[in-house]
């Protein structure tokens, strides 16, 4: 272990805010890049104000959820409303390989940091823009939150109980999804730059990326003009049954069971003790099980309800059935699997409190990602402005006093 991380030597200026953009920075940082988030006390990011706070003490450097989602990003504070701060941002970009941003189209131009301006100071810069619906097109200015962005892809129309109305997902699945996937085109563009000397402006549409998740249902529409509707936890393409979440003993305990093959169906039957209803000839093949999915699920639910979710998962796994407990938030932290994989780590924040965040959620055999606590605002100001940009101490102090570095 402990050779250099793959993106060692790559420097990133991250104008990203809220969630998706910061996660792209975090992903690149896990992979070895040196990432500086640019933010300001003049407009504190909403996510820095979200409770709960470290040790219960409110403050923009103490939001636990913000820290987990931003960890790995450094922090530089610049009040980009001021032209001098915009100049400093461009000076920083001149020393960077990559710029990340997730504002709406046009905002970076207003901040004096549009692609043309940045290319002027760094001709081979890779600028990664990830607005909700891309940089152009009739919906380019659409107002959404990550929470509702999915409604523009068809995804929300697929989520819900069978034949019922759409049920909202109560947080922005699309934000970490796009944040992580966003690193892919950035790295692809780095490779292109290394081979040709050419930078570029990547237009990443969050809408279009999430719509790939709808790909299977899109193909049904494209081929059959059919609009898919919610189907609970049934197989998305109706290609297997049983396939669902079933109640277990205890309050709000559930088990997921997916039977894709006839062998798995036989295994499930035996595990249930081959009850008479399973011997119905119609259920012997996939087509018959899918046709009778509601009745099959009802019978299985009667059986699972008598069992503990974890014990039943073990039993079914021993029999060869794909089954697993449905975990709640508390279960995650105590789960032996996530413990074994070191999914969550406790770190000590520079302000002295302990916080539990997630570490490298992908494991790499040769290189080990570093895990840092969430960044204190302005953590890297001295390093960036004095060491990297060569600003003298007295001018630096003046910039701080003038609330340009702020």
């Amino acid at each position: 272990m402990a050779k250099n991380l793959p993106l060692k030597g790559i420097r990133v200026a991250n104008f990203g805010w809220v969630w998706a953009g910061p996660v792209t920075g975090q992903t690149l940082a896990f992979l070895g890049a040196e990432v500086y988030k640019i933010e300001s006390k003049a407009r504190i990011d909403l996510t820095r104000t979200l409770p709960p706070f470290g040790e219960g003490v409110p403050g923009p450097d103490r939001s636990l959820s913000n820290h987990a989602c931003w960890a790995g990003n450094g922090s530089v504070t610049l009040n980009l409303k001021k032209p001098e701060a915009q100049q400093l941002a461009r000076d920083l970009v001149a020393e960077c390989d990559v710029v990340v941003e997730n504002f709406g189209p046009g905002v970076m131009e207003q901040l004096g940091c549009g692609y043309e301006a940045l290319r002027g100071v760094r001709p081979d810069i890779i600028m990664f823009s990830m607005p909700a619906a891309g940089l152009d097109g009739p919906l380019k200015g659409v107002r959404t939150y990550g929470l509702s962005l999915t409604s523009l892809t068809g995804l929300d129309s697929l989520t819900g109980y069978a034949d019922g109305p759409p049920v909202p997902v109560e947080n922005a699945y699309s934000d970490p999804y796009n944040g992580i996937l966003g690193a892919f085109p950035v790295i692809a563009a780095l490779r292109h730059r290394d081979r040709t000397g050419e930078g570029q402006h990547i237009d990443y549409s969050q809408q279009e990326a999430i719509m790939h998740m709808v790909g299977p249902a899109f193909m049904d529409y494209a081929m059959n003009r059919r609009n898919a509707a919610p189907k609970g936890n049934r197989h998305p393409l109706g290609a297997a049954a049983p396939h669902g979440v079933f109640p277990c003993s205890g309050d709000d305990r559930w088990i997921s069971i997916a039977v894709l093959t006839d062998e798995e169906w036989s295994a499930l039957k035996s595990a249930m003790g081959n009850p008479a209803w399973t011997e119905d000839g119609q259920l012997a093949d996939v087509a018959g099980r899918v046709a009778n999915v509601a009745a099959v699920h009802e019978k299985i639910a009667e059986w699972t309800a008598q069992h503990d979710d974890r014990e039943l998962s073990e039993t079914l796994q021993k029999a060869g059935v794909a089954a697993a407990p449905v975990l709640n938030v508390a279960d995650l932290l105590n789960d032996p699997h996530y413990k074994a994989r070191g999914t969550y780590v406790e770190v000590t924040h520079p302000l002295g409190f302990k916080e539990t965040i997630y570490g490298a959620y992908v494991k790499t055999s040769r290189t080990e990602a570093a895990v840092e606590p969430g960044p204190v605002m302005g953590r890297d100001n001295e390093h960036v402005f004095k060491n990297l940009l060569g600003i003298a101490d007295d001018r630096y102090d003046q910039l701080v006093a003038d609330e340009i570095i702020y």
Partner: protein
Amino acid sequence: MPPGALEGIKVVELGQMVSAPYCAKLFADFGADVVKVEPIEGDVARRWGPFPGDQPHPEKSGLHLFLNTSKRSLALDLESEAGRALLRQLIAGADALIENNLPRFMRQWGLTYDELSAINPDLVMISITPFGQTGPYAEWNAYDLNAYHLTGASSRYCGRPGEPPLEHGTFSADFFGASAAASWGLAAVYGREPAGGGQHVDVSCAEAIAASFVGGQNIGAYAQDGKFDKRTGVGMSLGAPATILPCKDGHVWMLALETAQWNGIAKTMGDPEWMQLEMFQDMFTRAQNDDAMYPLIEQWTMEHGKMEIMEECQKNGAPVSAVFTVGEAAEHEHLRARGYIVEQEHPEAGKIRNLGAPFRMPACPGGPQSPAPLLGQHTDEILRELGKSEDEIETLRRDRICG
């Protein structure tokens, strides 16, 4: 067209269903040479559909046609030593292997990272499974559904209290894991020099979500305060309006967290008096009084169409959106203007529409280069590249080692 960003990267895909094929598709659509190694009977996705007119046909499965663009197909019997030898030869010359088999199958086939790195130290092996390569559930049989529900995402964020937690109605865990695998895997390929060679990239679809989605927003709070939340069935419990409501012809995402947004909805609704009440003046008090508020908004939405509601609210500064059906998304003028939906000519399925690249790289464009391959379409071509003679190829085909 200039070459794709990943031109020159050689990838072997040993994957079925969704996760590894989607990850490999991202590589293929942006220029990598991806050989999809399929069993003689083909990737399971070829049997999952959807099919035109619901008539099953292994070359016309929509899932397959979506996930396998820009790839070449080699059909190979991995249960035979000759088949495995061919695969090892292919991997020896590859930059990356992308696979989603349970670890026990990779052991049975002699395709563990230790074995493969011995023949190709620069190989990046990207393994994408529900639970990953290590930990007590690594050997469990599992699919997308099991992975998703192990993340806390469903218990916390989707479904009505007392009813089963829900996934999205697609292969959410597989897509998430595949996306993480694409970024981390490409970094490992790109960074082989600083890293000192290839490596094994171990992706658990469940872990990626449990960490970055659910963990990021909840685990710090639970670890510190011992408290946690569960799904409510409403879009957001802390602020309102923030949920999906029915309207005249479908559903809309009604969302207003800031004052200007609330005023934008009010303006669109004709500034009804009730919206000026003190109890509705910030998102927190609105949420506390949502029993009163949602029915009043719903009365109005039920009288209007979703596209009209979206357009007017957006115009007035509120982030309200229509819940598009798949067809409404597919036909939207925005996506047409951006050229997102592409047309392909497939030898069996005919003219098909497909989804294009989700990001534009002007210097090195990507997106589907060719339609999904027929089963074994490139078997002969690839065997020739491996130095096999026409006689050897014929024998491999006759012995059903290749197809």
